[in-house]
């Protein structure tokens, strides 16, 4: 294991294929000393794959990697660690029911003595690193006790303990509040004086504030490389997508027709989480017909539990949920569906569709007992088929045939299937949870247009999202959830990044 600093990391002609997909197409990338490089691209552009190749998790089909001018081959993450490369993944690679020290020990081969795990040595190293870089961590804490920000710190300390002199960060701020993000950026700026950093992000304002240089990846190829300072966010966005993108904004739409009492009225709702804690603490919210209410908040503050409770998938401890005059708190999922609730769930692959069922079967999944789709208990296959053909047309679902398994479609098309199904039922209320997560801008645009269209038809929409842009663009009113409580509800035009950011971090202003 060399201790010499990494003065340059160079990728030449890196190509990686997966079945049917070219994830990386002859990529050239070079990063010098003490620099912060942003790697930017839409979802699915190939960024994570490329980083996994650098980390030795994937082997490139073609191409070479050079460190300080000499070629290296990484057959496993161990090789990458030995050369001083470390990565903090988007989903933390921490074993929850082990301590910080045990997690670090997993990678710290020097602590693997023949019949003994030398945790004392690991602890020592952690404290050393943590003091040196001012990243306080407690080696004996269990991971599941720590907050998201603390866990990220553990990840950073871990990579540094393993000897990283070159740091790769994959979407480091995706689970942080704006304030935590600012703190992280300061920390990274300081670290960049000793290490080189590549970070992956699709948040252009972060790219602007942190990086020196930026590489843009589109469909597996580097389409641009240059100094960050020389470009604006919008020109970077244009380079990312290949065309000018203007997301629909609610201002462009008509004034909200919202009048009168809420179509969906949530009163003092208390719901328990999986650990027996109070996930929702007296939540009250009203959504009027023809209105989009955006619920902003860092993931994990009760959004999932709220969506589940509203749809009969989680028990309600106390409080009421009124849907157009009918009390549905504690009702079964089937009944709530019948009362006119539409739901676009968070996990499209496992909650929104049955992946092995065909597209046409998924399109009638919720209403299979309806007179339209079955008579006397027997399925009306012809009606189901023609329904699918029609919806496929209307929603532009790209699939070889409506008989194809829904799970084999791309993420955007799966979401369209879900959307088509929900909207074709003519719901009174629609709950959309992170609807555009992981989708490219084209799909995002489509979904936003659909939501706005429903809004003008008088549907009451609850939009739960982490993307502040999305919330600010689409919502008539914005609510912020923090630790299970609605801190504030404000009109859309009053919502700014700063005000939302503070609320998301729990700072309620007077």
């Amino acid at each position: 294991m060399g201790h010499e600093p990494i003065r340059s990391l160079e990728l030449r002609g890196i190509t990686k294929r997966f079945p049917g997909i070219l994830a990386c197409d002859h990529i050239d990338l070079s990063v010098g000393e003490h620099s912060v490089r942003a790697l930017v691209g839409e979802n699915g552009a190939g960024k994570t794959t490329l980083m996994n190749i650098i980390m030795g998790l994937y082997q490139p089909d073609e191409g070479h990697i050079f460190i300080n001018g000499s070629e290296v081959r990484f057959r496993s993450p161990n090789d990458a660690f030995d050369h001083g490369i470390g990565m903090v993944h988007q989903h933390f690679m921490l074993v929850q029911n082990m301590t910080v020290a045990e997690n670090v020990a997993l990678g710290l081969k020097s602590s693997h003595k023949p019949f003994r795990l030398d945790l004392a040595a690991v602890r020592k190293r952690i404290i050393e690193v943590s003091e040196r870089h001012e990243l306080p961590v407690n080696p004996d804490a269990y991971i599941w006790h720590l907050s998201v920000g603390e866990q990220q710190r553990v990840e950073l300390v871990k990579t540094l303990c393993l000897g990283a002199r070159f740091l790769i960060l994959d979407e480091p701020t995706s689970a942080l509040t704006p304030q935590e993000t600012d703190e992280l950026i300061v920390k990274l700026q300081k670290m960049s004086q000793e290490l080189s950093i590549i970070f992956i992000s699709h948040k252009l304002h972060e790219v602007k504030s942190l990086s020196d240089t930026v590489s843009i990846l589109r469909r597996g190829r580097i389409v641009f490389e240059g100094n960050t300072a020389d470009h604006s966010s919008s020109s970077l966005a244009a380079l990312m997508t290949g065309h000018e993108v203007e997301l629909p904004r609610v201002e462009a739409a008509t004034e909200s027709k919202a009048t009168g009492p809420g179509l969906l009225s949530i009163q003092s709702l208390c719901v328990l989480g999986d650990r027996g804690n109070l996930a929702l603490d007296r939540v009250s919210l009203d959504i009027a017909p023809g209105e989009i209410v955006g619920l902003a908040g860092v993931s994990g503050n009760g959004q999932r539990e709220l969506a589940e409770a509203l749809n009969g998938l989680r028990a309600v401890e106390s409080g009421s949920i009124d849907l157009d005059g009918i009390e549905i708190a504690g009702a079964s999922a089937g009944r709530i569906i019948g009362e006119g609730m539409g739901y676009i769930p968070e996990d499209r692959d496992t909650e929104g569709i049955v992946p092995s069922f065909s597209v046409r079967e998924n399109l009638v999944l919720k209403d299979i007992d309806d007179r339209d789709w079955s008579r006397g208990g027997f399925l009306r296959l012809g009606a189901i088929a023609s329904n699918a053909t029609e919806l496929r047309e209307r929603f532009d679902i790209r699939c070889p045939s409506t008989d194809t398994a829904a799970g084999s479609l791309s993420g955007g098309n799966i979401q369209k299937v879900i959307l088509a199904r929900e909207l074709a039922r003519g719901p009174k209320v629609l709950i959309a949870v992170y609807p555009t997560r992981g989708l490219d801008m084209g799909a995002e645009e489509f979904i936003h247009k659909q939501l706005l269209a429903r809004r003008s038809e008088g549907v009451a929409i609850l939009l739960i999202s982490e993307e502040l842009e999305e919330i600010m663009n689409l919502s008539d009113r914005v609510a912020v959830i923090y630790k299970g409580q609605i801190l504030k509800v404000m009109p859309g035009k009053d919502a700014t990044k700063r005000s939302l950011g503070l609320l998301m971090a729990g700072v309620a202003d007077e």
Partner: protein
Amino acid sequence: MNSGSFLLNILILGVPFSVALLLAGLGEMINQRAGIFNLGCEGIMAMGAFIGFLPPYFLARTELAGSANLIGIVLAMVAGALLGLLFALVVVTFRAPQGIAGIGLQMLGWGTAGTLFRHYVGGVTGVPGIQPLPIPGLSKIPFLGPVLFNHTILVYGAFLLVPVFWYVLFKTPWGLKVRAVGTYPRAADSMGINVARVRYQALAVGGAMAGLAGAYLSLAQARMFADDLIAGRGFIAVALVYFGRWHPVGVMGGALLFSLAQTLQLSIQVAGIKFPYEFAVMLPYILVIVVLALVRKAKMVGPTELGKPFDREQRV
């Protein structure tokens, strides 16, 4: 028979009866900690019982007779490890669903043991087996002596393995890897740990233990081999591990509990209490169901990824 000696009888029988469950359970604990549950345990035990039985049967009149038992035990463990590796091939490399694959392995093991038995041995024959080894001095203690210190060497060994397995699982690097691989294999993979290799190793260990448990049954407990020797103990061992919360002490407690249910049946007969034989035999099986029903879903004390194959290429 008075109640005191009735109780004593149960305990005296209970300790050695629990050994097969304990050995198989410790092995299965390692499997499950690594994220794999092996229902084929029953079949591996059958093979272990048969292979362990063979050397004493064939070598009885030769000069190797003295070490025949030891040879049997070693061969049984090797056979068990090989079957464990076969299972690893199916569920780790081919990523087949573990439940059904386990049943397949059980049928394979059971059928092979039965076929070879019928061919090479034929009828039900006994072997001298392993004799009890009372510990001098300690075995004379009233009440505790016969219960704890008058057993075969395998019994002592099995209980000594409990702290050994505790140490291996919680204090060694390999144990750390096993636990990581069963809880968050993706994290282990990202740290350069070969998830597949650790799982193969775990299954080999689990298989060897199941083979040992089977050999114990044929050599030390029943001292013979028959088709129905295992009688579901392999499955009970798998259930045990859930019940024991994937911890060696819990597994030991579970093994003792289930064996007591079985010895209760024997003791009832010995005591002459009027109770239908078949219902008494049912007891351990009913107990398993009751225990599984009452044990609240373990809120992840143990392996969160139990039962799920690991695929690096799978999108998160």
